[in-house]
């Protein structure tokens, strides 16, 4: 009998238990700060300033109402979206073309171009902010074509070509993302069988048609990863945006930082803007966690 009992007693699977315990602790550590931001954005001022933080409370939309009705939230949202989507589109198109040339054609300077691209990819936005301000003023780049000074409805750009308009930021975010996107797409193009392109050329297609009708349609996966990472930088970046936008063209991260004031921090309104900033990246995470991991590990692990 005794042997039967020990035989039936289940061994506790310590490996599995410790794994789940670790996962749950990690989940809490990861989510708690984000939850606090969400929660604070729905709290009244008295609730925020109370000595006892409450996890469950009566939610209010007053912070959101304030930022939308008393501040220029909508133009800044438009500005952010314009810059995020514009940089992403520009990056995919130009990186796709460059990756095609590097992956499929031989020409003098090919190695040099590829290596230079990879070497300058780590230049930080702070360096750009400082030196760009310098050259816009020093060389008067903003006024290089005097007629191009333009004014659009609020939020759609106001100022000269680069200074203060969204075009300048789009240029820099695209430049910051191009090296990564070019080599990522390079890898994807390399996996497409050359025979497809050769067949198209035999059928009389020129190279542009090959690129846009044969290659690009097969690159959905590569474009997805590249788009996520470009949008992430363009939507989230703060330092360049702080220096290169004006009160009409600010992006949301700059707007959020402005709730830190001399007379204290407007936590509720700041957290409302913060919440709205993280919603698009969160949605992307829910639908494309796999692509994000692919992009993160692309440099280290050969896929």
């Amino acid at each position, binding site marked *: 009998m005794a042997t039967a009992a020990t035989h039936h007693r289940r061994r506790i699977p310590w490996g599995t238990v410790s794994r789940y315990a670790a996962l749950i602790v990690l989940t809490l550590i990861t989510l708690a*700060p984000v939850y*606090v931001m969400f929660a604070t954005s729905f709290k009244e001022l008295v609730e925020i300033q109370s000595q006892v933080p409450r996890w469950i409370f009566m939610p209010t939309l007053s912070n959101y109402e304030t930022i939308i009705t008393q501040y220029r939230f909508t133009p800044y949202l438009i500005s952010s979206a314009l810059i995020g989507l514009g940089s992403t589109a520009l990056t995919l198109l130009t990186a796709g073309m460059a990756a095609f040339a590097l992956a499929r054609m031989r020409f003098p300077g090919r190695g040099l171009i590829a290596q230079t691209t990879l070497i300058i990819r780590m230049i930080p*936005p702070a360096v750009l902010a400082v030196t760009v301000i310098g050259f816009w003023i020093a060389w008067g780049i903003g006024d290089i074509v005097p007629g191009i000074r333009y004014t659009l409805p609020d939020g759609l750009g106001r100022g000269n070509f680069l200074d203060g308009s969204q075009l300048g930021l789009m*240029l820099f975010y695209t430049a910051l993302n191009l090296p990564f996107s070019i080599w990522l797409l390079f890898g994807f193009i390399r996996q497409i069988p050359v025979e497809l392109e050769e067949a198209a050329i035999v059928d009389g297609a020129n190279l542009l048609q090959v690129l846009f009708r044969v290659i690009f349609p097969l690159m959905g996966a590569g474009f997805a990863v590249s788009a996520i990472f470009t949008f992430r930088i363009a939507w*989230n970046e703060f330092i360049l945006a702080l220096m290169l936008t004006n009160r009409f063209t600010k992006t949301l991260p700059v707007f959020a930082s402005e709730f830190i004031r001399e007379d204290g921090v407007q936590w509720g309104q700041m957290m409302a803007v913060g919440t709205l900033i993280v919603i698009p990246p969160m949605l992307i995470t829910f639908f494309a966690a796999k692509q994000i991991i692919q992009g993160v590990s692309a440099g280290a692990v050969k896929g």
Partner: protein
Amino acid sequence: MRTNRFVPYLFLLPALAILALGLLVPLYNAVMLSFYDWNFGQPWSSARFLGLANFERLFTDPTVWNSLRTTFVFGFWVVTLEMLIGVGLALLLEKAVRGATIFRTIFVMPLMIAPVVVGLIWRYLLDARNGIVNYYLTQIGEAFPFLQGLGFEAQAWLGDPTLAMVSIIVSDVWQWTPFVFMIVLAGLQGLPGDVMEAAYIDGANWWRMTWHVKLPMMRNILLIALLMRVIDVFRALEVIFVMTGGGPGASTRVLSLTLFQTAFTSRDLGYASTIALLLSVILILFSLVLLLFSNPMKDRADF
């Protein structure tokens, strides 16, 4: 593919033009401005040629060297902690668990949140008066008075030089540990199954497997993860900018923040460009080392 001699350059042109305007011209500009004494906001005609004076100043400037040391302290702790925790978790969670997709999605989230928002969230959590961290520390300290001497009481997180450094380290570890975790996990899952099986059959236990088989096989991946984190440490600015602004005193003023403040607080654009060059050179050197281990366009193409 056989093409006209100029065709490859035409495909590369848009990307190269954007890279030149967005990265190379600013870099060139940093070189040019570093020979001048020029105040931000003054007309270019007021600039004074200094020769190498800015460089002499750079090498003897205690502000720069102190901020470089601060960057090293900050970098040492975040990279060590992120590598240890990231690798540890990847080893622990290597085996597939139920719900892996959900956990994966959750752990990707911090990587997608705007750094400026991460800074704002942690600034709120660590706020001396309204912060949740201090509230729970006090509660625990009151419940178990013997813990009060061990730090379980309200702390001036962002007001004390050491604690401010701890605070920015914590926020960085919170956001970037998933990055290391994901790279290492992808690497572990890519290890050849037959080698692992052979090692198990030879009777290797978990510890020996990890230490003598898996980690050595992943040396390259670990090095790449480490280098990418080191590079990001030198680029990091936004979180520190909104959490402490470099303070109290200069206790959290990293190199990129010194660069920013020299340009826009001291308005010393010529000297700031010299610091920008220093930072760029450091990052280009790291990029070169990174290229030795991970040259994405070299493995597949024959440059």
